[in-house]
């Protein structure tokens, strides 16, 4: 019996001693953390994708608390709702940021962009692009090996086996930008999602001269500048034989889409066109005035 008592007493004494030491150490080295950091972190999506530019949600939360204003701080996954919540916790006001989405600026399907050779090296776009321009005549276009698919933590981008091009799942894409960084050809761009997911963009990144680009791909932008001439809002620039629609200036009037001779400008989620192109909407007109 006495052995048992001794053991219990000894262990108890060690336990109590250790607890006292731990308590004292805990008091001595106590880290005063702003309780709002935890609160902010709890309201974040915990995807830890790095889309905000910080290593994870925790560091984004502490950056939010430390920052003077909410400018340049945005969680693409949570979107406006989350940022409003974060701003409410911190007693500030979140700036309104338009929701963005990843768009793939290459439409060179197997039909429109014939394969000239066969690549059977390591199945990774970064490796293939370091070796050569790709298995088609276009050295700017998508290689179709799926680095963007591997980089996506939200399962929002997939290679379509028919076209061998990546396609973005609108509901899942959070515009975290991982695929933009992963693509060695700089094809993927984050663009405004637009009202009702309607958006217009030039689905080509080929900077070759028109004839060369057209020879390599039926739907290549040839830099003919027809879209630029027809655009009433000066939203289209032509640089290095390539048209680009500036997101902030585009008012989605759709005038550029039918004039493109190679059909390289895509419109998404718009209602079907009438026979004659519709006149610009009234609200657009007021903007010009």
């Amino acid at each position, binding site marked *: 019996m006495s052995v048992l008592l001794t053991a219990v007493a000894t262990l108890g004494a060690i336990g109590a001693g250790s607890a006292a030491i731990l308590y004292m150490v805990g008091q001595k080295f106590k880290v005063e953390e702003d309780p709002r950091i935890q609160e902010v972190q709890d309201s974040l999506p915990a995807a830890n994708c790095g889309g905000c530019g910080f290593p994870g949600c925790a560091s984004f939360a502490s950056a939010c608390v430390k920052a003077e204003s909410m400018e340049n701080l945005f969680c693409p996954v949570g979107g406006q709702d989350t940022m409003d919540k974060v701003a409410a916790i911190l007693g500030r006001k979140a700036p309104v940021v338009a929701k963005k989405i990843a768009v793939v600026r290459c439409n060179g399907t197997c039909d429109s962009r014939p394969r000239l050779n066969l690549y059977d090296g390591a199945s990774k776009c970064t490796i293939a692009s370091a070796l050569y*321009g*790709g298995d088609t005549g276009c*050295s700017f276009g998508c290689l179709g090996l799926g680095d963007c698919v591997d980089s996506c933590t939200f399962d929002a981008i997939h290679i379509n086996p028919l076209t061998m091009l990546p396609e973005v799942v609108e509901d899942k894409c959070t515009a975290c930008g991982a695929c933009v960084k992963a693509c060695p050809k700089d094809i993927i761009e984050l663009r405004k999602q637009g009202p009702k997911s309607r958006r217009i963009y030039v689905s080509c990144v080929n900077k070759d001269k028109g004839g060369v680009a057209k020879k390599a791909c039926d739907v290549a932008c040839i830099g003919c500048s027809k879209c630029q001439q027809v655009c009433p809002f000066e939203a289209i620039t032509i640089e290095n034989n390539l048209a680009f629609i500036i997101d902030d200036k585009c008012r989605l009037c759709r005038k550029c889409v039918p004039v493109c001779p190679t059909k390289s400008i895509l419109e998404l989620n718009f209602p079907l066109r009438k026979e004659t192109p519709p006149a610009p909407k009234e609200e657009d007109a007021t903007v010009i005035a």
Partner: protein
Amino acid sequence: MLKTFRIGGIHPKENKISAGNAIQPIAIPDQVIIPLSQHIGAPCQPVVKKGDNVKVGTLIGKSVGFVSANIHSSVSGTVLKIDKTLDASGYKRDAVFIKVEGDEWESSIDRSPDLKKSCDLVPGEVLDKIAAAGIVGMGGATFPSHVKLTPPPGTKAEILIINGVECEPWLTSDHQLMMEKADEILVGTTLVMKALKVQKAIIGIENNKQDVIALFTQKVKDYAGIHVQPLKVQYPQGGEKQLIDALTGRQISSGALPISVGAVVQNVGTVFAIYEAVQKNKPLVERVVTVTGKEVKQPCNILSRVGIPLSDLIGVAGGLPETTGKVVSGGPMMGKALASTDIPVTKGTSGILIIPTLEAKRNAMKDCIRCAKCVSVCPMGLNPTLLMNLTEYEVWDRAEKEHITDCIECGSCSYTCPADRPLLDYIRLGKGKVNGIIRTRKN
């Protein structure tokens, strides 16, 4: 016991089927395309425009920046345009298109075949001539020679090493050049020794070229300070660091240049080009190209002008076999598969290898079985399987610590891997990334 380098190495089947075939000329086509970037470093600035008349040897691209080399016209005719063309990199780069009219050479070039031994230029003048002639390393790396022959301040060259190894299987262009132009190469060697102010030169030749070894052993007796050293056949003995180790026993520390152990290495092709540039005023406008392959009808060594499309050279060798699966520029180990045969010959095109379909296809990648064969063959003493994994998972700081930047991209690891893992593909990618990180850190 023959000398070789100490760490790693492999011995693939040599297949030098075009050995002994005399260097033959090739007809100049109606149009040549001369890329403005045929060397490591900054691309040249074109100094001709559409409609200009050029002769063989006229300067058409002027080097910009320190690491760069001049480019000269290889034909006489009219400049058609300066436009982009697909080159061996697989991307479109600027090039000068020239319509060929006759074959008129610049009057300064001495076209007589006589050997000119004596040279009364001072070392600086020799270097200027090499730079003006646009000589680059012709083993395939195409590093501008005048830069290599100018040791950085604080270093001194002690020994010149001439690379007559040609360790790549299939290729025989250097072999044949050494057989036919032995004296020119030896005079070229003395010129390089003069430019470097060194008294000693060693020519390293692998033991599978007995005829060359015999010829050179005989010839070097007339040239002071030049020695011939037969070497055991081992790939990648033509790598600078491996060759220095094999010939002198000096090892170069990680990240250092060969000059740190007092050695400068030049390829035999380069030395021949230097001879022509210094003694005959002839810029680098042509080179020997081996066209070979298992199913090629007439494997051959062709003296081709720069800018002739590879398809013409393949035509001389009997045309593309029906079974062709891959056309490689260079040898099977370090060469690069081409996207098209319309690509022009450049200063670095040492050979064209045509591989049949059955042999061209890669096997599917399997899991690593940790056999460490890649580790034992790596001539740089690296751990390829680890480096591949580090690249795959983007652990750049660890990859840097594991000396990924020391990789010479010889491909011995991929060659030997029983699981067919694309080790070099990944390591090359990682090496590029890590080099980029180091550069940004320095700036």
